[in-house]
C-alpha cells in the first residue's frame, strides 16, 4: 500500500514541471492584467483550449504507440465542411455532425491502413493524408466558406450550460454567469473517458505495450495492427469532432480552418510529458500541456503582445519543458 502511494507521488512529481509552469503562467498573467483572472476569461480560455485538447487526446494515444498524426489539422477542415455541406443539403444538424465525425474516422482508417498494411512510416502516411484531406476540403467547397447554415448549426459551438443572465434596465442582457460552454463540457467528458481507457483498460495497456516494445507485444499475443489502427481511427474521429465544433462556433464551413493545429496538438502532448519515442504519456499531462499553450496565447494577447512574439514564446516554452523532462529522466 505504501509503495503504491510512493509511486503516485512520483507520478505527481513527474507532472510537476508542466503543472508548475502552468501555475507560474497563471500567477504572472493575473498580476499583469486585471481581466485575466475572471470567471468569464476562464471560460474563454477553456473554450479556446478545446480544439487543441480534442486533437491532443488523439495525438497522445498515437504518440504512445510510437506513431504520429500530422493529418488532424486538415482532417478537421474536411470533416467540418462535410458536416456543413450535409446540413446545407438538408440533413438534420446532429446527423450532419455525426457524418463529420465519421469522415474523420474514415481518414483515420486510411492512415491506419497505410501504417499497418503498407508499412509506411507514420510521419509519411499522415503527411500524405494532411495534403489529401486539405485538398479535398478545398475542392468540394471550391475554396469558399459554406455559409447560411441556420442557428441550430451554431448551437454546439456557441451554447452553454447553466448560463445565467437578466435583462438590465437598458434592455440589454446582463451576464451574471457565462455558463459552461458545450465544447468545454465535451472536452471534460472526452478527457475523462480517454484517460480511463488508457490507464484502466486492457486496450490502454496494449497501447502502451505496442509503444514500449512492439515485437514483445506481438509475441505476447497483442494484436499490434489492430491496436495501432484504433489509435489512428480515434485520432481521426476526434479531429472530425474538432472540425464540427469549430465550424459550429463559426456557424459556417471553413475549408481553410485548422492549419498547423496538428503541431499544437503534438506540442501539448509533448509538454505534458508524452515521449515521441513511444511508450510513455498521460492524458492529464496532455491536458496541462493544452492549457499551457492556451493560457500563454490568451495572456500574451491581453498584454498586447504581438502574435509573432507569441510564436517565439510558445516555441521556447516547448523547448524548455521538454528539456526539463529530459534532464529529469537522465537519472
Amino acid at each position, binding site marked *: 500500500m505504501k509503495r503504491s502511494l510512493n509511486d503516485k507521488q512520483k507520478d505527481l512529481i513527474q507532472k510537476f514541471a508542466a503543472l508548475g509552469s502552468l501555475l507560474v503562467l497563471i500567477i504572472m498573467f493575473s498580476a499583469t492584467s486585471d481581466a485575466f483572472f475572471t470567471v468569464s476569461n476562464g471560460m474563454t480560455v477553456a473554450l479556446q483550449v478545446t480544439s487543441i485538447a480534442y486533437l491532443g487526446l488523439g495525438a497522445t494515444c498515437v504518440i504512445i504507440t510510437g506513431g504520429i498524426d500530422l493529418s488532424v489539422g486538415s482532417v478537421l477542415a474536411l470533416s467540418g465542411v462535410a458536416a456543413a455541406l450535409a446540413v446545407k443539403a438538408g440533413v438534420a444538424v446532429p446527423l450532419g455532425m455525426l457524418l463529420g465525425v465519421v469522415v474523420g474516422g474514415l481518414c483515420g482508417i486510411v492512415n491506419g491502413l497505410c501504417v499497418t498494411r503498407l508499412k509506411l512510416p507514420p510521419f509519411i502516411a499522415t503527411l500524405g493524408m494532411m495534403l489529401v484531406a486539405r485538398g479535398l476540403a478545398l475542392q468540394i467547397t471550391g475554396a469558399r466558406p459554406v455559409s447560411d447554415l441556420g442557428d441550430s448549426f451554431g448551437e454546439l459551438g456557441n451554447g452553454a450550460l447553466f448560463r445565467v443572465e437578466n435583462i438590465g434596465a437598458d434592455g440589454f442582457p446582463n451576464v451574471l454567469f457565462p455558463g459552461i460552454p458545450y465544447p468545454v463540457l465535451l472536452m471534460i467528458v472526452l478527457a475523462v473517458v480517454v484517460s480511463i481507457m488508457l490507464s484502466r483498460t486492457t486496450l490502454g495497456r496494449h497501447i502502451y505495450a505496442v509503444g514500449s516494445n512492439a515485437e*514483445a507485444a506481438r509475441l505476447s499475443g497483442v*494484436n499490434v495492427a489492430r491496436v495501432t489502427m484504433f489509435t489512428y481511427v480515434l485520432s481521426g474521429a476526434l479531429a472530425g469532432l474538432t472540425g464540427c465544433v469549430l465550424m459550429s462556433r463559426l456557424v459556417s464551413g471553413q475549408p481553410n480552418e485548422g492549419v498547423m493545429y496538428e503541431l499544437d496538438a503534438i506540442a501539448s502532448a509533448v509538454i505534458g510529458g508524452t515521449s515521441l519515442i513511444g511508450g510513455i504519456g498521460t492524458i492529464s499531462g496532455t491536458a496541462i500541456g493544452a492549457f499551457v499553450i492556451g493560457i500563454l496565447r490568451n495572456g500574451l494577447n491581453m498584454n498586447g503582445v504581438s502574435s509573432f512574439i507569441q510564436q517565439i514564446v510558445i516555441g521556447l516554452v516547448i523547448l524548455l519543458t521538454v528539456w526539463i523532462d529530459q534532464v529529469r529522466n537522465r537519472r
Partner: protein
Amino acid sequence: MEYAHRAVQAVSPVELLSLQNVSKRFPNVLALDGVNFDLRRGEVHAVCGENGAGKSTLMKVISGQYQADGGTLLFKGRPYCFGSTHAAEQAGIAIIHQELNLVPHLSVAENIYLAREPRRGWFVDRVKLARQAQQCLDRLGVHINPAEKVRTLSVAQQQMVEIAKALSLDAEVLIMDEPTSSLTESETCQLFRVILELKRAGVGIVYISHRLDELEQIVDRVTVLRDGRYISTHDFAHTSIDEIVARMVGRSLQEKFPARTSVPTDICLLKVTGLVRKGGFGPVSFELRRGEILGFAGLMGAGRTETARAVFGADPMDAGTVHLDGELLDIGSPIDAIRHGIAYLSEDRKSEGLAVKMSLAANITLANMAAVSSRFGFIRFGAESAAARRFIDALDIRTPSEHQIARHLSGGNQQKVVIGKWLFRDSRVLFFDEPTRGIDVGAKYAIYQLLDELAARGIGVVMISSELPEILGMTDRVAVFHDGRIKAVLNTRETNQEEIMQYASGLDAQSAQAAPANPLKASLN
C-alpha cells in the same frame, strides 16, 4: 586477512587497477558497498556474483560511466575519476558490453575507427583506414574483412570487432561483460584464444560471466560480490567452482540440476510435420509428448529458434502441419498460437521479450490480460499486483516492488519477468529459448525446478539450449539440429555430450565413430 594481502599488492607496479572500499548509491539502493578490486598486467580477473550483486555497476564505475560515491580508485598507481566512458577509453580502459555497441550499417573498419578516422585534410583517408583496421584484426588473428558491413557479421564476429576497437585504442584494461552469452561453443573457443593472446600482450582483462565452467580455461583470479558487497578474492588455482558458488550464494549448492519428478507419458501432445521455411530451415518434423521436456540442441543458426518461432506463428511457415492433441491447427500469428495454448519465450529478452518502459506487473500480465480484467476490459489492479507478487516470490525477482519499471531491473531479473509472463499464462506447450542465459546459479536452479513442475502437470516443454550440461540434466529426449534439419532424436539417458556434438556438427552416426576425439575442434572448421 585477504584484505591485508591486498594492501601489500597495491604498491606493486604490476597493478593496473586498484579499487579500495568503493561505494555507489542509487536512489533507494546502495549498489556497491565497500568493494575492493585489483587487476594486474596480463591477468584475467573474473568478477562473480548473482544477478544484482553489483557486477555491472562495478564495471560501469571502473569504465567511467558512473562515478563512485566513496572509496579510492587507482589506475597505474594514480587516483582517477573519469567523467565519461570516452575519457576512460582515452586513458586506456575499454569496456565491451553484453549488448554490443556497433553501428550496423557501417563497415568493420569504420566501426573500429568511429569518430577517430584517419584523415587527409577534410576527408577520411580510406586507404589508411582499411590498412590500420586490417592490422588490428591481424593482431587478434581473426579473419574478418574490414570492408564488410557489421550487420552481416555473426554476434561472435561483432564481438571480435569490439575487441579490435578496444585494442586500437591501446587499451590496457579490457572489461568484458558476459562475452560468451550468445556465442556457440566453437566461437567461445576462438574468443578464448584471443583472450590468451591479449594476456600475453600484457592487457589486464576483467571478465564477467555466469558460465562458471568456462572460467578455468582462462581465469587467473576471481573476486566474488554478493548484494553489492565485497566477499572475497581467490587465486583460481587454489580454489574450486564449488567454493566460488558457495561464496556467491552465501550457502553451498549441492546439486546443479533438481531431480526430475515428472515422468513423461506416451501420449503425443504436439506433432509437427514437414515444417519448412524457404531459405531458412526444414523440413523439420518432431513429436512432443505430454509431460515431457524435449531438448533442442545444435549450433547457433541450425534452425532451433527458427523452428520454434514458426510453430508459434512469429514467423510465417511455407509448408508443414502442426497438430495439437490430434487437432490440426491453423497458426497465422502468435495470437492464434497463444489461444491454442502454445507459448514461446524468446531468447532475446530486451528486444523481443520485455516492454521495458512498463512496470514489472504490467509485463507479467501482458500475455494474459483477460485473467486480471473484468468482462468489459477494465483492469483489476489488485489482482494484477497479486499475480505479480506471486511470481516475484516464486522466481526470486529482486525488485523494490511490482511497480518497478522493467528497464531498471538487472538483466537476469528481466529474464525472470519474461518467464513469469508465460507461467502466468497457462499453456499446454511451452517453448523456452535459452531460458537460463545470463541468469545466476540460484535462479537457474529455480527455473529448472519450474520446468520439472510444468512437465509434471502434463505440459509439454521444449527447451532450446546451447549449454549441453543443461540439456543432459533436464530433458527426457533431445532433438539435435544441424543445418536446418533434425539430425537425430536421442534418448537423453542413453546419450552423452560427445554424441550430441557430433550430430550437431553434421557428422552422421557412422563417421561419428571415427570422428576426432574433440568434436569441438572439428566444428571449428
